[in-house]
């Protein structure tokens, strides 16, 4: 066991994957000499050479598109998109090529790409540096989408993503980059929970609270605070956003009868919509109240002095829990 920050855990995961498989190559802007703007790839170019850790020209469509070509050639490219807001120039290659090539070729061409995306807000950044674009990719068939919330998951899930023969979007909760945790660097991948599985990170009986990435910590804090008031929250860390692990969610909601979902992305068509819809379909007779979404607003990401309002925090989550429990809450009395 080693105590690592989330960035160090990702770095270790990249290193391990590169050691294990010479076909793993990294592409991105500033990932080589600089080691990435968040130092996630620190030291890798020095140790593996500039033919495996490739500082690319400044063009995201090309980062993805050349990775597709490398995959045709048998490589397993890991692309870094520097910030969430810079993934859109590469959107066409992701949606029309990466996601579709396996089906287009009847399974004959595999696209084992991993696309790393530092995402989310809360770090006081200017425009385009705090986005939560995951819903676009969850809606895109052919992709897998995951997001770790702890150093151990960051390490393990990245290795799983790189080992996966399907393309994987790997969303890194950048405001938790400095969170430290114990990481077992030696445990075999075969012993790890499946990449597509959610995890109950805190058992509870009154309400199921679902979060992923940066908000898992916030959700855990909310659960502790609620416990003081005698409310028992079961917190589920989704880990996989596509596919969603419905068996775990459904089992929990059938027990608690109540559901709250938290994410930073805007409410409309965010992950909360899909989870609410499917859980309602499959747990209709178990639900005591309507699932509650606690999310970012439907606005472009605001100036950083306003982000504390936009981002769900402990209080807003607890207010949502109150709503799910039918307790007095900020919206009590609001006309429907």
């Amino acid at each position, binding site marked *: 066991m080693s105590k690592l920050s989330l960035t160090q855990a990702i770095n270790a995961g990249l290193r391990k994957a590169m050691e294990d498989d010479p076909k793993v190559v990294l592409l991105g802007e500033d990932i080589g000499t600089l080691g990435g703007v968040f130092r996630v790839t620190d030291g890798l170019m020095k140790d593996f050479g500039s*033919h495996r850790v490739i500082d690319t020209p400044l*063009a995201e469509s090309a980062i993805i598109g050349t990775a597709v*070509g490398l995959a045709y050639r048998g490589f397993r490219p890991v692309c870094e998109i520097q910030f969430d807001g810079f993934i859109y120039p590469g959107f066409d290659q992701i949606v029309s090529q990466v996601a579709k090539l396996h089906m287009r070729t009847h*399974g004959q*061409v595999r696209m084992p790409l991993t696309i790393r995306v530092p995402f989310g807000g809360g770090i006081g950044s200017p425009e385009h540096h705090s986005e939560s674009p995951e819903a676009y990719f969850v809606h895109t068939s052919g992709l897998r989408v995951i997001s770790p919330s702890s150093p151990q998951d960051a390490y393990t899930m990245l290795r799983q993503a790189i080992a996966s023969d399907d393309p994987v979007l790997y969303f890194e909760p950048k405001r938790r980059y400095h969170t430290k945790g114990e990481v077992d660097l030696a445990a075999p991948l075969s012993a790890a929970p499946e990449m597509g599985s959610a995890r109950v990170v805190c058992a509870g009986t009154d309400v199921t609270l679902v979060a992923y990435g940066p908000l898992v910590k916030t959700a855990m804090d909310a659960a502790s605070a609620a416990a003081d008031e005698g409310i028992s929250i079961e917190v589920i860390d989704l880990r996989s956003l596509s596919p969603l692990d419905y068996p775990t969610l459904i089992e929990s909601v059938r027990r608690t009868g109540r559901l709250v979902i938290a994410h930073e992305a805007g409410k409309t068509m965010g992950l909360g919509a899909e989870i609410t819809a499917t859980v309602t379909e499959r747990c209709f007779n178990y639900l005591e109240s309507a699932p509650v979404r606690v999310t970012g607003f439907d606005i472009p990401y605001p100036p950083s002095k306003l982000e504390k309002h936009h981002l769900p925090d402990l209080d807003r989550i607890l207010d949502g829990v109150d709503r799910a429990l039918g307790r007095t809450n900020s919206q009590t009395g609001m006309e429907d």
Partner: protein
Amino acid sequence: MNDSRHGTTVPAGMHMHHLITATGERTSDELLDEFVSDVDHVTLRGLYRDMLVIRRIDFEATALQRQGQLALWPPLLGQEAAQIGSVRALDPEDFIFPTYRENGVAYIRGANLAGIMSTWRGSANTGWDPHEFNMATPQIIIGAQTLHATGYAMGIAMEGKESLSIAYLGDGATSQGDVHESLVFAASFQAPVIFFCQNNHWAISEPVGLQSHLPLASRASGYGIPSLQVDGNDVLAVLAATRWAARRARTGGGPSFIEAVTYRMGPHTTADDPTRYRGVTELEEWAAKDPLTRLRSYLFNAGMLDAETEAAIAAEADAVAAELRDGCINLPDPEALSAFENVYVDPHPVLDRQREEYRRYLSSFEGSAS
């Protein structure tokens, strides 16, 4: 706003490489001659046969579309020399990234005719295994494949292999951001990739002059990528030009850009009506430069073609056409549940559930009337 119509004539300022004129005379070209010094008359007749066969394929497919057997067909009529000259310059392990129009290239590479048709019939996503023929399936998103070719070539360079990739692209494609980024990456990493641009003068209804006032080949020079403009209706010159680029790629010379100046003699696809946007004079002009006619004249003059050999080639082409027709018409319709296959390599519980729901839905009709 510039109200003047954009021209379709090739702008001057670049040397256009030829080896066989429109009337069938062999000329010499300082750069290209050495690349075809080994090409004898038998080989040339083979190229003629190739062109004739793919023209026949094109006719047959067009006819099948008219008869409702294909959903759509993008004719290659007029571009036979560009397709044959380029693909015949390649080694089998060179990887090809085509557009939707390189169906002649796919045939030469060995793809099964019915397979090629399956995409255009709407019965399959692909008609061949890209890894079997070292050729990707048709790319419809304009320009996207040029990045794939560049990445593939970066991979070749990483491995230190003597191989290459080739990206086919059209004149219209040169405007896309992806094509630019391909040139940037290819130049930066000195990737062994050939950008083979068939300037067929039209992007659906848009003349090439709308995309560029200059020859497309001159675009490459700003990236430090050697380029040339070749008569795309001269199969020998195209062969030579592609070999020039291939040698550069194989010997560490990095990327090259070839503009093969040709003409789309048919509609953009069978869904298109070119009479809405182009005149007959232009068509007639280009008919006079037909890639088959000129090689035929050359071969006739050289005594390599007579009525008998012509008949033999025509019979061969007819046989190919018959095989195509047969294969196409007999393509089985895909199974309903195959729609769920190959979306992912590994199991995907959400999709698996949808598949099971749809299986149940379909079976709910079983036994019911109608």
